[in-house]
Structures are given as C-alpha cells and as structure tokens.
C-alpha cells in the first residue's frame, strides 16, 4: 500500500473527530474572537465593532493587572506546594508498612470530592465563629482569639491556597507513586550497598525516574491553577476587597454579572493565550527533561 493512501485513510478516519472538534472548539473560539472586537451584551444587543478597544481598556485597567498578579501568586505557590507535598506523600506511601493500602485510598478522597463540596468543607473549617481551625489553634495556644481567615486580605489568599493544595496534592502523589513503582529494586538496593544517603539516593537514583511523570503533573496543575474559579467563588467570591479575585472570576463578572459579552470575550482570550504560552513553555521543558533522562 502506498504512503499517500495511508495518509488519506488516516485523514478519512479522523474526519468525524475533526468535524466535532471544529464544531465544539473551533467555531466557539472564532466566535469569541469576533465578540472580543465588539461591545456586544449577553442578551439584547448584538453589539458594534469597536476594534481593539476592549483589549486596550483591559490591559491599561488596574483590575486586570491586579488580578493577574493574584492569579500568578495563587498558581505559583499552590502548584509548588502541591508538587512538594505530593512527592513526599508518594515517597511515604511507597514504603512497606501496615495500613498502606487504606492510607492510599484515603489520600485520594480529597481529589475525588467535587470542588464545591471541598470548598464548602473548608469554609466550615475556616469559619470565624465555630471553625475547626480556630478551635484547634486556640486549644494549642497558638492564637488567643478566633480569627477571620477568609475575611482578612492578608490571610484569605493563603487560606485558599491551603484548601486548593489539600484538594490537588493527591493527583501529584498518585502520578509520582505510579512512577516510583517503576524504579527497579535492584538499583535502589545497589545504591544502598554503595553507601548513598537518602538525599543522594533520591537525587541520583529515584528522581530521574520521576522527572517525566512529574513534568506532566506540573503542566496539568499549572494550567488548572491559572484557570481556578469554583473553589474561590464558593469560599470568598473574590473578597475581601477583591484580594482573592483571579482572572476567571474577572471574566465571569465581566461577561455574566455585567453582561458585557464583548469585553468578557477579550478577557477570556487573554487567559487562553496565557495558558497556551505556559503550556507550550512546559512542553518544551518536558521534551528537554525526558530527553536528557532517557
């Protein structure tokens, strides 16, 4: 069979998928781009062409800049923490001990819970009047009065990051654990004989096996963290005083609460662009890491 026929057949086989992709991704994307150059409202008017007005207004506005910083802070800190905690949890669960299976199952629980449930749970934990966190910290003598964790700009973002970590570190742990199972036992045994300490063993024997899968986890989590919406919407709605407002919340307010579909679309496209650049950067990094590890 000739190569061209193979190629044609491949395209033919992919055709149904392509049609679906164009319908559900391609067309909405094109329409969003069109919308972003208009002053369309969500209901009512179709909108007029306004050029790049939406973009210039957005980029020069203090809302967008401040929200970008908040989003970046949230994403960087929570993803970094999730990676570290996830790997540590995986290393722990890779040891042989009694109750390991039960612990592994338990660890997945936060990740399996719907985000809204998770967020409601944490709102109860942080409750300034009856919350478990306040009760625990007071009983341990660490604070002398109950505090409003989600009501202070200084602590609200950190409180959200903790909740997000709790929900998402299991994903990292799960991926790392699977990778750890692939580390051949004779190699770790040999490194023990050679007198490698735990840190050296992790750095030179285990990490090369982990690097590729961890990269995948990092990409997934970073993209998700940049798009974070529901956990924040349920816990603080962007407050207090907009200190936890992320890009997705800004998009939501603009497009749905204020019904400005046009500028909402321009904002959404900026988020898409940002996430795409991040993903592309990571993809290059993955190729490099996996390439050098192999």
């Amino acid at each position, binding site marked *: 069979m000739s190569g061209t026929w193979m190629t044609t057949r491949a395209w033919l086989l992919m055709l149904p998928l392509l049609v679906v992709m164009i319908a559900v991704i391609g067309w909405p994307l094109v329409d969003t781009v069109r919308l972003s150059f208009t002053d369309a409202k969500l209901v009512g008017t179709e909108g007029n062409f306004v050029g790049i007005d939406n973009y210039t207004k957005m980029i020069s506005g203090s809302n967008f800049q401040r929200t970008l910083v908040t989003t970046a802070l949230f994403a960087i800190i929570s993803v970094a923490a999730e990676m570290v905690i996830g790997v540590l949890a995986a290393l722990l669960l890779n040891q042989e001990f009694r109750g390991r299976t039960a612990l592994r199952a338990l660890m997945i629980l936060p990740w399996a819970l719907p985000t809204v449930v998770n967020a409601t749970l944490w709102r109860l934990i942080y409750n300034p009047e009856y919350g478990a966190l306040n009760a625990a910290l007071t009983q341990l003598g660490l604070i002398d009065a109950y505090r409003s964790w989600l*009501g202070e700009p200084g602590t609200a973002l950190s409180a959200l990051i903790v909740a997000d970590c709790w929900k998402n570190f299991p994903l990292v742990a799960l991926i790392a654990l699977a990778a750890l199972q692939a580390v051949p036992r004779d190699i770790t045994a040999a490194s023990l004989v050679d007198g490698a300490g735990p840190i050296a063993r992790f750095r030179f024997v285990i990490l090369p096996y982990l690097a590729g899968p961890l990269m995948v986890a990092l990409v997934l989590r970073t993209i998700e963290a940049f798009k974070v919406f529901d956990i924040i919407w349920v816990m*603080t709605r962007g*407050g*207090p005083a907009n200190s936890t407002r992320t890009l997705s919340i800004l998009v939501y307010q603009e497009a749905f*609460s204020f019904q400005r579909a046009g500028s909402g679309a321009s904002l959404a496209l900026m988020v898409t662009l940002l996430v795409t650049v991040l993903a592309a950067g990571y993809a290059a990094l993955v190729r490099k890491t996996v390439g050098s590890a192999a």
Partner: protein
Amino acid sequence: MLKSISKTLFGAALIGASFASHAFAETTINALFMAQAAYSEADVRAMTDAFTKANPDIKVNLEFVPYEGLHDKTVLAQGSGGGYDVVLFDVIWPAEYATNKVLVDVSSRITDDMKKGVLPGAWTTVQYDGKYFGMPWILDTKYLFYNKEILEKAGIKAPPKTWDELTEQAKAIKDKGLLATPIAWSWSQAEAAICDYTTLVSAYKGDFLKDGKPAFQTGGGLDALKYMVSSYKSGLTNPNSKEFLEEDVRKVFENGDAAFALNWTYMYNMANDPKDSKVAGKVGVVPAPGVAGKSEASAVNGSMGLGITSASKHPDEAWKYISFMTSQATQNQYAKLSLPIWASSYADPAVTKGQEELIAAAKVGLAAMYPRPTTPKYQELSTALQQAIQESLLGQSSPEDALKSAADNSGL
C-alpha cells in the same frame, strides 16, 4: 389468536391514550426559585403541589439555586435561548431585565383587584418605566433583631430608636462584659452588604443617584458608610461581619452571640424555634433605627417578584401559576416565613397570631422601604460599592476615597 389481537389492540389504545394526554392536555412550565431565606424550598414545593392539584393540565418543573446564583442563571438561560418560563427576581433587577428584554411586560394582565389589594410599596418591586414586569411575591425588608435577655441584663429598658442609641446600648453591653462584640451584620463582599448599607443610607436620608449620576459619595451615602466603619473600628460590631452572609448572622444570633442583628423577616420565626435556636422566646424585633432629626426608622426594599421570561412559550400557563403563587390565600397560608403582599391580610388573625411583634415592626418598616437604585447597570454599581465597603472596613481606604472610586467605577 383472537385473545392476542385484542391484547395488542388494548395495548395500542393504552399507548395512544398516554400519548394523547401528553400531546393535547399537559403543558410543562419551568420555574426558577432560590434555595434560602423567606419561603423554604419545601414551602415552594407544597404551594406548587397545591397548584398542580387545582390545575392538573399544567405541570411545573421547579429548580432552586442560591440567591447568589439567581441573577446569573436567569441571564445565562436567556442568553442561550431560554429554558425558564417563570423566574424569581430581586427588586434590583427589573430595570436591567426590562432593558435587555429578559422579562415580558405583564401590565395588561394585572387586574384591578390586584392593583387595589396589594400594598402600594410592594408594587415598586416589579415596576420599571411605568410598566409591570411581574407580581411581587416576597415582601421583605431588614429589621433590627435584639436579644431581650441580654438587653435586660444590661439594664436597657427599650430597644434603640436611633443608630446612635444602638451604639450606646451596644457599648453598655460590651462594658458590662455580657458580649465582646454585640452587633452582627452581613458585610461579606456580596449583595447582602449593600442591603445593610442601603438601610443606613435611608436612615441618613442619602441618595444613590441624582439625575442618573452617582450621589452616594457625599451626604447621607457617606454618613452611612462612616457609621459602618466607626461601628466596626469601635469593636462593637462583630469583626467577622465582613465575611458574613445573612445565614451567618442568623447562626450567630441564634447562638446568643449577638445582642443586635440586622436581618430579613425569615429570621424571626426561625430564631424563635427552640429546635435550632438557643435564644427561642427571647427574640425581639423592631424596625431598623433612624437618625435623630432625619428619620424615625430605616428600611431597605428587599422584596422579590415572579415574572415571565420573554423566551417562554407558555405565558398564559406561567401567569396562571404566578397568580396562584402570589394569591392572598396562598400567601396567608405561608405567612410565617414571609409576610403577605396583600393589605387586608394584616387584619387576619391567622396571619398575625404568634407574630404580633413582627407585624408591628413590619407596619413601620414596610412603609419606610428605601429602594436600591433602579438602573440597568445595577450589578456594576453594586460590585463597585461592595468593594468600597470592604476597603473602608479593612482600613485600606477612607470612606470618602472608597466611595469616590466606587462612583468612578460604577459605569454610570
């Protein structure tokens, strides 16, 4: 053989009959409500069951969302081609909904009996530009609730009549060591904070808008925010108020941790229910206070109405349902969680029994109801004001500066 044929025929007839009843007799309408405050979800279901019993040809699908999702869900459904026939809407939305053609004008459907029977203040809930966009359903304003036992222990004879008196009484309670932070509000970054703010704006005789331009940065609007900030900074207000919604206020009050709380009607009977509340039997309610020389009492219009969406294919059935839900009989039956919109209901002992104190407060409060501004850009204005309130409470900005930037960001 014959038997099996007759069986088949019987079966066909059955199937035909079931199709017929769907195709010719039954109409299904979809209705969107909220799952909190005023009438409970169970109440709305019970009312709807009574309606379908009386109108077996109309089926009603009910959907409930939290108040925070009601506006966006309505607008989104409309933006995507509809889905709801009947929607619950807040008093602040008719301007926007009318301008964007989310709700249909039902002026011609309102009968003279309705016009005469319903309290005049209630109509402001559904009106915009001289037209009616639905029927008022939940008549509500914020009242000042107080804990009788705590006031008694502090030697206070009568609940406050002015906001300054409230401050003094709270200070007396704090100084006696009865409560560290006697006042609870719902000042979370949400619409709830605007309702508390509006109550104070009405007390200080402020204006939100003048000739369509923001006017809250000076005068009564500024005094209202200054009062909030000083109450917060003095420590008399529970500092957690800045992350409270109405339900948080209720829990704090029911736990005996607040001497004063501003909240809607629904809290009265819930806080008096010994099953959930530690303060049952000690709950006092009065109209929200006024300001000496300016007002006797203050109140925000927090009413809600039921309307028909422009996407509805069954407006007649939808109106039938709305008429039933807002009828005097239905409203009287469920008067414990939300007071009726009908003037003559207040003379009915079945409505007033057991809540005389609330009715007395309602007579003053409902008459003083102050509207939040009617503008199609309400959501933007509200978001800007929510930010101003939070920034001033947190000390990030002075009330003057915060309100000035809210005016700049209001889109008006």
